[in-house]
């Protein structure tokens, strides 16, 4: 089966800012693909291009084999609004019905509300919903038109653990063998819970496109830091910098690094080892990719 959505060498510029830099990506039927990256990495821009909201500066975005800006290409596309943007005076069921009017064969309102646990608040205005209920409604709206491709931008940001898990279940149940989900997140945990495939974006570029397990290894970095005047060449160091007299080393395997350090006989003190945050891991990955190209 052909890909449901494709980005082919897509770049997008906003004024001086290059939000996407020659990104290529296929979303195939049957997949849940996670787009992972820190804020400003280009995740939302990529979704906007695939949803037809924006035009690529160069390259091509395709949806079901055509231009996403052509409304007829979006008949089997589901998108979530930001929950802050729900019309506050419309009732929950009205929001669903409004969206349903745009599709040929929508899911019946009651069935949809039931699936997302919103039946009890069907008659309530969205302005009076809790954050979690708004988020669930926003995600539910993406599924109204029986989509084959669903784009979810940060589907569970700001939800508590129980609400997050409930929503994950609803998303996981969805894709059959001819449909797919593309979701963004800046939590690896969220992507690991939902997606089989992870695309890591950093500074507008694809840094990795792989299984959850390999990406986890890639981004599960540790920061080993110590006071030292000089340190020998060590293997497994992804990045190295000096700050306030401390040497900071980023590595995937801190155990091996420490062993090498000790056996080298180099003088050091105040050794500290921390798990690097995802942001730090991204920064390291981004700069590593850049320097390897130079």
């Amino acid at each position, binding site marked *: 089966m052909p890909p449901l959505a494709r980005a082919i060498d897509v770049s997008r510029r906003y004024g001086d800012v290059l939000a996407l830099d020659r990104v290529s990506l296929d979303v195939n039927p049957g997949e849940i693909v996670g787009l992972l990256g820190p804020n400003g990495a280009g995740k939302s821009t990529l979704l906007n291009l695939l949803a037809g*909201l924006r035009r690529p500066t160069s390259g091509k975005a395709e949806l079901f084999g055509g231009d996403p800006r052509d409304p007829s290409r979006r008949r089997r596309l589901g998108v979530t609004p930001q929950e802050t*943007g729900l*019309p506050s005076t419309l009732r929950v069921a009205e929001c669903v019905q409004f969206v349903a009017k745009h599709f040929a064969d929508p899911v019946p309102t009651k069935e949809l509300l039931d699936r997302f646990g919103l039946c009890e608040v069907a008659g309530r205005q969205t302005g009076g919903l809790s954050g979690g209920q708004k988020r669930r409604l926003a995600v539910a709206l993406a599924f109204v038109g029986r989509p084959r491709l669903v784009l979810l931008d940060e589907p569970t940001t700001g939800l508590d653990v129980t609400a997050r898990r409930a929503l994950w279940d609803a998303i996981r149940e969805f894709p059959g063998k001819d449909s797919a989900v593309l979701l963004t997140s800046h939590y690896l945990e969220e992507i690991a819970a939902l997606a089989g495939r992870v695309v890591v974006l950093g500074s507008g570029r694809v840094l990795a496109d792989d299984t959850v397990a390999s990406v986890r290894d890639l981004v599960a970095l540790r920061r080993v830091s110590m006071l030292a005047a000089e340190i020998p060449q060590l293997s497994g160091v992804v990045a190295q910098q000096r700050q306030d007299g401390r040497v900071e080393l980023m590595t995937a395997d801190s155990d091996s690094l420490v062993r090498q350090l000790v056996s080298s006989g180099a003088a050091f003190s105040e050794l500290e080892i921390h798990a690097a945050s995802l942001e730090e891991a991204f920064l390291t990955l981004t700069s590593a990719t850049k320097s390897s190209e130079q």
Partner: protein
Amino acid sequence: MSLVLTHARYQFLETIRIPVAVIGTMFFPAASMIFFVVPAVGDNAAAATFATGSMVVFATSTSCLFNYGIGVSEDRAQPWDPFVRTLPAGSFPRFAGRILNGTGFLVLSFLPVLVVAAVATEATATAPQILLGIGALLAGAVPFTLMGLTIGYLLPSKAALAVAQLLFFPLAFGGGLMSAPGRAPGWVEPISPYLPTRGTAELLWSAVGDRTPDTLAVSMLGAWTVVLAVVATFAYRRDEGRRYS
């Protein structure tokens, strides 16, 4: 077509559930009738008819400025707008629905004026006169619709509110809507034909009363319509380019 109606219907629901919007739309024009027109000219059939026409134009211009000006600029700031853009419909139904909804509010804004006129004044009009009046009003509402759209697409919502508030009263007063035809204070009469409110009022006065519309005022109304159509198109395209290109 059914999608246009859908968009109009839900936009109408969104607005009508905000009590202030309804009061602003329906209460103030009717209140102006009760406090100014009824005591002053209520028992003079011809004068009351002209004054009712003036108040209908006042209600219409105000409703357009606020409904489109503030409605559009607020919607532009909401993430709901881009979400609706991703539905398989294009931008036409939302825009057409907005015009339909705005026209609905326009009618809501002057209906109470007509009710007060019928109940509390000697104002009269025959059925053909009323039909002609509706036609005159729909034509005369176009420049105000365009003015509201321009404000809405050009300005952020706080600025749009301020500009609408700055404009609506000078337009009404300067257009001579607060006085009988030709009886406005000295400095108003010379400028009033150049304001679109006067042109629309001339059309409406002539539809329901014994009067020939002032040529200058009606030509200026045409000129306003053309100029505002150009400006509103520019504002719309600029907004499209900023948010969706």
